């Protein structure tokens, strides 16, 4: 049986940088990657959406604070509210936090240094659309490149999030001073994930690691399942 290519959108904001890499990686993983311009108030017909990394609106005021009010972000919020799959990478994670789709906020790295290197991560949860090809406890190596990646929530909230199984990825080594070493967090429904590491930069062994493909291919699998269910 021919399996259909799921349609996965990638939003380009003014200042997005990793939109093309995300489009390339999704295409390489057998999705139909669809560029979406930030001024689009309505999303095209999509099975999932990716908010890419970069510096939307120059990170003015706070990272993601302005992009949150883009027409496409409003459309993404509606898509997520209907159960649509949304993945925010780096700046995309920051935007999803500012938009209130994910808990917390990303602050300046504790070191005040921009970190740009491969980091080791631990998968905390393998039953999500974004981690179906992983196993809980699995170690992944995926690069980070950010100056504002210190995820913050008050400690009582991080305990609550852990109980609700919303912590999806943790750093397995010091990275940015993130609360409870959280590298990726999902919403209560599990259909929205944000993470600081860049899976789209780790989809081929030539790039040093292809562990990022596990996350993106999980998303492609889940998006394909949704496309088939609706067909």
């Amino acid at each position, binding site marked *: 049986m021919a399996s259909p290519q799921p349609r996965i959108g990638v939003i380009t904001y003014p200042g997005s940088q990793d939109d093309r890499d995300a489009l390339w990686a999704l295409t390489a993983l057998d999705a139909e990657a669809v560029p979406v311009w930030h001024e689009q108030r309505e999303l095209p017909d999509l099975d999932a959406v990716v908010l890419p990394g970069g510096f939307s609106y120059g990170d003015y*005021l706070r990272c993601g*604070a302005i992009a949150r009010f883009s027409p496409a972000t409003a459309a993404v919020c509606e898509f997520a509210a209907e159960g649509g799959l949304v993945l925010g990478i780096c700046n995309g994670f920051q935007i999803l936090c500012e938009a209130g789709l994910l808990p*917390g*906020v990303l*602050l300046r*790295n504790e070191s*005040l240094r921009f970190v740009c290197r491969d980091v080791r991560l631990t998968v905390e949860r393998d039953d999500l659309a974004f981690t179906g090809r992983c196993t809980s406890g699995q170690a992944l190596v995926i690069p980070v490149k950010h100056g504002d990646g210190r995820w*913050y929530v008050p400690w009582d909230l991080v305990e609550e999030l852990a109980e609700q199984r919303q912590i999806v990825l943790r750093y397995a080594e010091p990275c940015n*001073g993130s609360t409870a070493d959280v590298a990726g967090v999902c919403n209560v429904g599990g259909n929205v994930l944000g993470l600081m590491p860049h899976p789209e930069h780790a989809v081929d062994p030539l790039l040093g690691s292809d562990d990022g493909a596990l996350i993106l291919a999980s998303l492609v699998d889940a998006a394909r399942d949704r496309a088939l269910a609706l067909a």
Partner: protein
Amino acid sequence: MTAPQDASGGPGIKATVLVRPKTGILDPQGEAVEAALEHLGFAVADARIGKVIDLEVEAADAAEAKTQVEKMCEQLLANPLIESYEVEIHGQPAA
């Protein structure tokens, strides 16, 4: 760009917003500045770095201007998880 006009056709009301990191939020920029000041020989403690946003608001009076600017803070200018804010209205006594 022309300055916004208030309801009576006069100039807009000037406002200043002070945004500060909340107590207990780690502020590595403040710590770095504090260390630099200590290096210069100043005896300082608890340096914290926030933001100043100056605005000119179109509003009938200072009270309305303040209400508007507070809404701006809630919706965009400050993130309540990590920041507190203060609004100052200039030129006219606040009602």
